[in-house]
């Protein structure tokens, strides 16, 4: 019910204000927050006549988003300027870019971090730049085939002020890692003036493609309204030429079924109109999930083991497959110590054994 009301408010369906008065407000606000839609809801309700008690409750819930975003914006500008000064070509992508390119105000798009894409060879420079700005890297599984991202956090008095998610490929599953290369995104990137002279985000077709793919590849096909609304905003502003680029890309990378599903969800929840040139394109209209390995990820119950097997299959050589297996099974001792026994002297073999047992259960279990 709450999901229906959220999308109705966003779409401006008449009578929503009356429905809000009759609904369980706490449950509604909780759902809006969990779906990443609270700031947009608060913004929509600020322009319609609504019960004063409801308006006050909604605005109170949403009030912190602006302040948090102001700090994030200031930090992100510093990071981008510093990376540019060190010669790193970074592209802001996902929610951090869409907040500036497709939302009326950046605080309307909640996000936990700022996603940056850099060329793989610039990773070390980017790391040193972030550390120099006071960011601390998160401990994560190392291994050049396991993860293509690293998280950096800046805190003040124990409070997290800004998190940078540094990527050198667009996704971790091997099947999606090269769905769009840095070079492709970089070549078509568009300026984001609000974030400074060096700030750039993906072109509209690339951003739409990433919005469709990211939800499935990184979040197990989670149907969070915020991500679907991203797709709606992107799709609603595409030109005919941009749709053509998007369709070519989705067909070439064999990810059309995923893209079509993203647009279908967007149409279902937000009334997105997919233009006839797209709907009637045979590659789109007749996309066959059985012919696209990526479509297997459109499954909330997919076990992690399936993703690992897909990773093995997607890698080009047996030496890479062996390396990936080793990186999963035997992370470096420093990582094992910090993650599994930060304050004990448990022997390393026992830690590896514990990781294997726990990991096997998690990998086999379905979501």
């Amino acid at each position: 019910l709450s999901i229906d009301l959220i999308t109705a408010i966003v779409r401006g369906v008449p009578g929503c204000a009356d429905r809000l008065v009759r609904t369980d407000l706490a449950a509604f606000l909780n759902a809006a927050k969990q779906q990443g839609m609270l700031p947009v809801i608060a913004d929509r309700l600020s322009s319609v006549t609504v019960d004063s008690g409801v308006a006050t409750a909604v605005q109170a819930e949403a009030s912190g988003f602006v302040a948090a975003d102001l700090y994030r914006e200031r930090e992100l500008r510093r990071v981008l300027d510093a990376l540019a000064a060190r010669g790193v070509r970074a592209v802001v992508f996902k929610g951090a870019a869409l907040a500036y390119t497709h939302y009326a105000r950046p605080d309307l798009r909640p996000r936990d971090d700022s996603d940056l894409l850099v060329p793989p060879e610039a990773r070390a420079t980017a790391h040193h730049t972030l550390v120099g700005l006071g960011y601390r890297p998160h401990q994560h599984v190392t291994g050049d085939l396991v993860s293509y991202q690293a998280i950096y956090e800046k805190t003040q008095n124990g409070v997290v002020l800004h998190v940078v998610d540094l990527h050198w490929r667009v996704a971790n599953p091997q099947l999606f890692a090269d769905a769009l290369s840095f070079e492709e995104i970089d070549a078509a990137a568009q300026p984001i003036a609000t974030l400074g002279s060096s700030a750039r985000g993906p072109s509209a077709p690339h951003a739409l493609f990433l919005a469709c793919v990211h939800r499935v590849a990184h979040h197990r096909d989670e149907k969070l309204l915020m991500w679907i609304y991203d797709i709606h905003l992107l799709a609603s502003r595409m030109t005919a030429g941009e749709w053509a680029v998007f369709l070519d890309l989705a067909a070439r990378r064999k990810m059309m079924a995923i893209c079509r599903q993203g647009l279908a969800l967007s149409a279902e929840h937000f009334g997105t109109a997919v233009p006839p040139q797209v709907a009637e394109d045979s590659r789109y209209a007749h996309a066959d999930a059985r012919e696209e390995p990526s479509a297997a990820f459109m499954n909330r119950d997919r076990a992690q083991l399936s993703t690992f097997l897909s990773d093995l299959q997607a890698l080009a050589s047996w030496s890479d497959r062996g390396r990936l297996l080793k990186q999963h099974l035997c992370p470096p001792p420093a990582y094992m110590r910090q993650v599994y026994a930060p304050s004990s002297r448990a022997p390393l073999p026992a830690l590896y054994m514990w990781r294997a047992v726990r990991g096997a259960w998690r990998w086999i279990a379905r979501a």
Partner: protein
Amino acid sequence: MPLPLADRIVPSDAVVTRVVNGATVLLNTDTGRYFTLDEIGSQAWAALTSSPTVHDACDRLLAEFDVDRAELERDIEALIARLTEQGLVEVARG
């Protein structure tokens, strides 16, 4: 503190702002505290931080609002005191 009519009001380096539906959110990034100015306060903020002197800002606001100069100057004085107290602005001597 008497109203510094000949002085200029400069936003602190630590302050970032955003206009949201006519209101202005001010964040002091040093303290992490944020404040919201309503629509009238937002117009006062805009006039104060973009005019060469407080006197000029008052002239601009007098042209926009139906208020006498004495009352306006009292309100502006209180606003500047509050903004200064919270480290949101500095008074640059004219």
